[in-house]
């Protein structure tokens, strides 16, 4: 059974560290990335099913990651996580084709629910919250 490919980008190392295990338990193949520049490279090389990205990062913003992911594949679901959730940012993200946005601080279960929802929509039926 093919696992949904998931990329998580946040310059805060603890975010990836804490979320990785839970997301893998859902049945995803999870890749963690703290450097958005490296993330852009990864996105260009490989089609991820789901990309979870922070917005405010040094040098490269989550919006650029969103654009890159949507350019690489329109199928990719991009979930934005941000500590600076404003209406403007939400509008911009949605216009650029983000799947959803979740404001920091959030519970891991909330993100997992979103990931499950996205994966199910993409046809990965055996993904579910444990």
């Amino acid at each position: 059974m093919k696992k949904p490919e998931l990329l998580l980008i946040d310059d805060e190392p603890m975010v990836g560290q804490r979320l990785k295990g839970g997301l893998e338990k859902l049945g995803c193949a999870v890749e963690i990335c703290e450097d958005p520049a490296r993330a852009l490279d990864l996105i260009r090389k490989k089609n991820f099913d789901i990309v979870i990205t922070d917005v405010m990062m040094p040098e490269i913003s989550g919006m650029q990651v969103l654009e890159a992911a949507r350019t690489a594949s329109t199928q990719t679901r991009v979930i934005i996580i941000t500590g600076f959730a404003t209406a403007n940012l939400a509008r911009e993200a949605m216009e650029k084709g983000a799947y959803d946005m979740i404001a920091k601080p959030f519970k891991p279960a909330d993100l997992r629910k979103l990931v499950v929802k996205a994966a199910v929509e993409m046809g990965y039926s055996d993904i579910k919250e444990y």
Partner: protein
Amino acid sequence: MPFHIRDKTARMAAPDDKDLLDRPIFSFRLQIILGFFTFFILSVLITISAMITINKIEKRIATVQTWDRFLFNIEQARRWEKNFFLYGTNLKDALESTGAALEILNENINSLDSSDYSWQKEEIIRHLDRYHIELNRLSQLVESNRSQPAFQNEIEANLRQFGAQMVEEAAEMAAREYEMVSRWLHLLQKVPAYFLVFLFFLMIYMTRFLSIRFMKPLKYLVNQTRRIARGDLTPLRPVRKFRDEFTTVEVAINRMLKELENRQKSLIDSHKLRAVGILTAGVAHELNNPLNNIMLTAHTLMEEFTDIDDDEKLDMVKDIIGETDRSRSIVHNLLDFTRESKSVMEPLNLGRLAEETTKLAVNQAKVRGVPIHIQIERHLPDIIGDRHQLKQVFLNLVLNALDAVGSDGKIHVRVESRKPNLVIAQVEDNGSGIPADVLPHIFDPFFTTKPVGKGTGLGLSVSHGIIAKHGGRISVESAPGRTIFTVTLPYYPTARGNEEKPGSSEEPPH
């Protein structure tokens, strides 16, 4: 209540006024009064001496008249005497005239005493006496009707001798007195002319002296107002050794400076609150990161509590504590900036201060996606300053730079020392630059190019005021793509802690 406030400012102004008021009074009023008093005394002296001179002349004229009358009577007597010897008549008349002459002399003996030639007067009196005696002897001789030609001849010779001497001497006296009178008159003619010339020069001197006395403090005040206009609010110091009407103005200016300083302080405070408002967005984001970490870690701990070993649990708890600390320092940093604080001048490392301040704005910069590079010289000498106010200046410059740049913006913060004793801090951005027609006004109060509600137009003017208060300068050069604000502050070699470790150089904080 207003009375209370006035009372308070008066008391507050007192220590500064003390130096100004602790001088002896030498007011312009007094100076003008003294000037006119000098004129008056001089005029009185001149008038009195003129009156004395005129009085003296009057007396001399009286003396001359006395001598004239005396001379007239003597000459009359001599004519009668001559008549007697020629025709044997008029001897009585001669005696009478001599008597009259004697009477005149005796009557005026006191006024004649003032004469400088008393010995001559006595000589005349002696000769007159002898003449009178000889005449009496002649008269007795004639009355006795005895013809004694030899005796008469002797009397005649004596009469001629004493008469001639007396007339000559009296005439000389009269002439001398007359000459004296004309000399005095001559003097009296000259004195007013001299006085006028003297008065003229005295007036020129007084005018010059007074105008210089007026102009000097005026010039000083004009220069002081220029200094104040540049934002230096240090009170005026006494420059003259005495107090005058200008002191009132100086005291008033010092009071005004005190007020201005109070106003500026409240302006600084209100502007600080605005800056805090701008920062809050960035701080919210900054704070959400550790909060998120805490949330994720706590949830993970809860979800996997039975699956993980104690070491891992301990690590997670430590992470939670660490992130809580991080949150606390973020809040502390903002509060430290917001805190109402007394103005304390202390030795400061401007580099570290700039670094701390820039970090306050880094989150705001992150929100905008603008990198801030900090470059700080090692071993910067300490400057003396107010930590909170200088922080406000840097924050304002950095926030302005953030406003000025576009999406590909970059901001450089540099702090370095310059010879001979300056520390300069620069905030450079690559925004569109400040138009040349706007550039001269950017430090003016209430000048803003930002849309209504975005800027108060006070930031740079407040910064300018703060830097001026520190004895420094803030300047700007701008071209499209490169705008540099430069803060120049002096340091004093006595400031300790020059070896203190400065912030690391070339470190982009993120």
